[in-house]
């Protein structure tokens, strides 16, 4: 098993884990964390796959992508956190209501 594949599998594992957590946990903060874990998984895969040609200089394009992705993820997380605060202020709970909107 090559290192690349190991990284990729770890990334996929992180992604699945995050997905699982996203679905299971009700608290919004945990959901946001779960999404961030998923994001890390994807970035890991991207970076790992960048080194597909063994020995040679790794492809830089995936790295650029990852940086962009991280920027996006950070801003999205910031927005999400801000929203969580507002939701808590409005409803008193940091959870999404289960029943459909009337």
């Amino acid at each position, binding site marked *: 098993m090559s290192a690349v594949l190991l990284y990729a599998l770890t990334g996929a594992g992180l*992604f699945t884990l995050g*997905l699982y957590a*996203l679905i299971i946990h009700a608290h*919004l903060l945990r*959901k946001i964390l779960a*999404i961030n874990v*998923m*994001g890390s998984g*994807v970035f890991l*895969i*991207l970076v790992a*796959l960048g080194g*597909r040609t063994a020995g040679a200089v790794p*492809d830089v*394009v*995936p790295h650029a*992508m990852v940086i*962009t*992705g991280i920027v*996006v993820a950070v*801003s*999205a997380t910031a*927005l*999400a956190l801000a*929203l*969580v605060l*507002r*939701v808590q202020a*409005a*409803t008193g709970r940091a959870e*999404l*209501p289960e029943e*459909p*909107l009337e």
Partner: protein
Amino acid sequence: MQQIPWEVMLILLPLAGAMACFLWPRRTLLFGLISALGVGGCVAGLGWRLLEQGAQRYAVGGWGAPLGIDLYADGLSLLMLIITALVGLGVSIYSIGYFERRQAILFWPLWLLLWSALNALFLSADIFNLYVTLELLGLAAVALVALAGGANALTAAMRYLLVNMLASLCYLLGVALLYHNFGSVDIAILAQRVEASPAVWAAMGLMSAGLLLKSALFPLHFWLPPAHASAPAPVSALLSALVVKASFYILLRLWLEIFPQTGAAPGQLLGVLGAAAVLWGGIQALRQTRLKLLIAYSTVAQLGYLFLAFPLGSSFAWKGSLYLLLSHALAKAAMFMAAGNILRFCGHDRIADLDRVAQRLPVTMIAFSVAGVSIVGLPPSGGFIGKWMLLEAALRAGQWWWVIPLILGGLLAAAYIFKVIGYAFTQAGVLRQTNKVPMSMEWAALALALAALLLGLVALWPLSLMEIGLPFGGSEVDAIQRAEQS
């Protein structure tokens, strides 16, 4: 002579406008309107050039693929830009009257940012750029939904944000797989390199799943009605008319250019889901007692139509689906605006208590009805043309069973639209206090509704625009390649 880079201006102008609005909140309206008009002008300029010179590719900063960012404009993206500009102008005018000052200084920057993201999305030539623009779009949209305040809007926004992030990550994973296998993210290059393999299947699955989630295809539509119904009216209009269409646009490009040889089964699956969406959304819409929720479920149903082209696969069907997309964008925007007017006027949007709105708010009600005509797909309207093309394509392909959801969906649409109109003509028991609705709000809705209607009479023009460039017309390169193969 140096050509004016309309493409770049289309992205930068609203972005700059958003910045300006953010920095000088007192001049929000001025900057906003200038940007809106400017974007309109840029779209016209780009359209003029496309008509003269065919599809355009523009390397930003002169870098070019694979490292630089390429912008690509063909008939398809031009049409999307035009519709965005039309709806955008309408929404801009509408929002002048809609928002009070405190909300306006939040709305305008976000809206211009959204516009910028949309334009960038439609002009992107590679799938990673599409990811970035998709994220930008999602963030702006979520913020706009949250603008309404209140528990409903905030939880809806939160749900929307989570869905958006999840979908984007799925999409990004797909992008990673494609890049890993073929070494490029440029759509045109990928189109040449891709061949069917498990990796491509996986990428397609992931990207489609993400995009379907964003396009709210049944059964992934759960987030849409609360978000669209609880947002402020201009935002609802934007979300229903444009934002969900953006992800469909990406799906369409991928499907047409990168994964054309994926076989029939996925297409059939999407078709079945689309049909289910049409029926489910229709029934749900009919059940609603609140106007905005009704319209939101109607969006779920109408999005289902778009997917009926996937199993048919013919260029005629794609064009029909696109035509439906265009007319739905205009009509649904008009409809949400009309609903906003009614909400403002009556102070509520309970359908059973509309109480002679038809007489007291005639322009709005005409807008609603005219938009409804297009949604139902009655002639003469853009919706009719699109439906006609899909029907014809289905019958020509011998897949007559797709006629059933098309027709049933139309009947359901008629049922829920006329339910509203019927109550709008009827006197309700209790008289209530009403508020004044500014003229600009009424006429903006009407203008968009009439545009949807007009789309039914000038069909040849958009259809010929679709012929420019890749998916339908085929560029010169493409034609040469095909000649060589045969």
